[in-house]
């Protein structure tokens, strides 16, 4: 018997492509976020409100992933920014090759901001680097406040937690501070914003965070700290 050391990541091919994407984003000055949550936590609605808040001259594009249908792309196209649907056909997450393929016919020189909406799934997308600057995890107040403890990986790897649907707080037994605290137990440096896309409350906090991160990414010396695990 002979033992051959392998010593490399299982997903090294994905990571290689993600590294290429990250280099291209840097070269073209594109700030990229990867949005991850359970199905129905409000990723598409948050992106709708976000696109609505951005000025028309903003050079932003969206890649949105789902197992079937291009419903989300249809919703997001109403804001007149480039949007492309990635239909995985069954795969429960986006991988770097899908991003590379769907960016192929976009001129990256014409973009400054790229939002990637992952397939609704709180587990699998956390394993796949897409070349993004940061992962953003959403948790809605109709879910359990202990989800960060039950599904720690994505909270551990995300720079920001957005607690969504806060307008429902009067009607659901959700302890929003406990949810934030559970996320901080898993990832002490995670930042937290609370948003209601229905009323708009908290949108300013999210948009400020986005603007700060974009500015920080342009100035390497003041880059926001890399979250644990990345």
């Amino acid at each position: 018997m002979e033992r051959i050391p392998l010593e490399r990541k299982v997903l090294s091919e994905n990571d290689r492509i993600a590294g290429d994407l990250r280099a291209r984003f840097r070269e073209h000055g594109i700030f990229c976020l990867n949005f991850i949550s359970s199905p129905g936590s409000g990723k598409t609605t948050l992106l709708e409100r976000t696109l609505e808040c951005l000025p028309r001259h903003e050079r932003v594009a969206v890649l949105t992933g789902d197992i079937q249908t291009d419903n989300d792309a249809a919703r997001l196209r109403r804001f007149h920014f480039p949007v492309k649907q990635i239909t995985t056909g069954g795969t429960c997450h986006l991988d770097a090759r899908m991003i590379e393929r769907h960016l192929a016919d976009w001129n990256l020189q014409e973009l400054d901001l790229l939002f990637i909406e992952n397939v609704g799934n709180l587990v699998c997308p956390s394993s796949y680097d897409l070349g993004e600057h940061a992962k953003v995890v959403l948790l809605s107040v109709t879910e359990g406040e202990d989800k960060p403890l039950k599904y720690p990986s994505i909270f551990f790897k995300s720079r920001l937690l957005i607690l969504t649907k806060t307008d429902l707080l009067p009607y659901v037994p959700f302890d929003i501070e406990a949810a934030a605290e559970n996320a901080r137990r898993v990832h002490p440096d995670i930042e937290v914003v609370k948003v209601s896309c229905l009323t708009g409350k908290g949108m300013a906090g999210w948009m400020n965070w986005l603007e700060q991160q974009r500015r920080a990414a342009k100035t390497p010396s003041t880059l926001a700290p890399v979250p644990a695990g990345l």
Partner: protein
Amino acid sequence: MHEMGIANSVLTAVRTAMRRVPGSYPSKVGLRIGQMAAIDQEALRFCFEAITRDTDLEKLSLEIEFRPLRYRCRSCGHEFAVQDYEIQCPNCRSLETEYLSGDELELAYLEVEEHGTNPVGA
């Protein structure tokens, strides 16, 4: 459920590595999987068995080394496994601690046997 994709990636890596050792067959592949890797070990084993069954890799076994979440204390340098997300240093009680490891999803090694000793599929 992305364990099938992970299992496929492992087999691709095994087949690639086997090109370097002609005349041998793979008997065991070792993985390191961290607490924060979001991998269900049982699901991965199930997928691994499903895609190796009735193939030339049927006798390839999978060994998984579990890696706990580990932090390092910035004050005293102590390195410790984090239990129940308690990141305070157990040595000096400092809260100035930092992530060290725990999201591994790594191929560690491949064990191969020479053909003729116990041929695969025989």
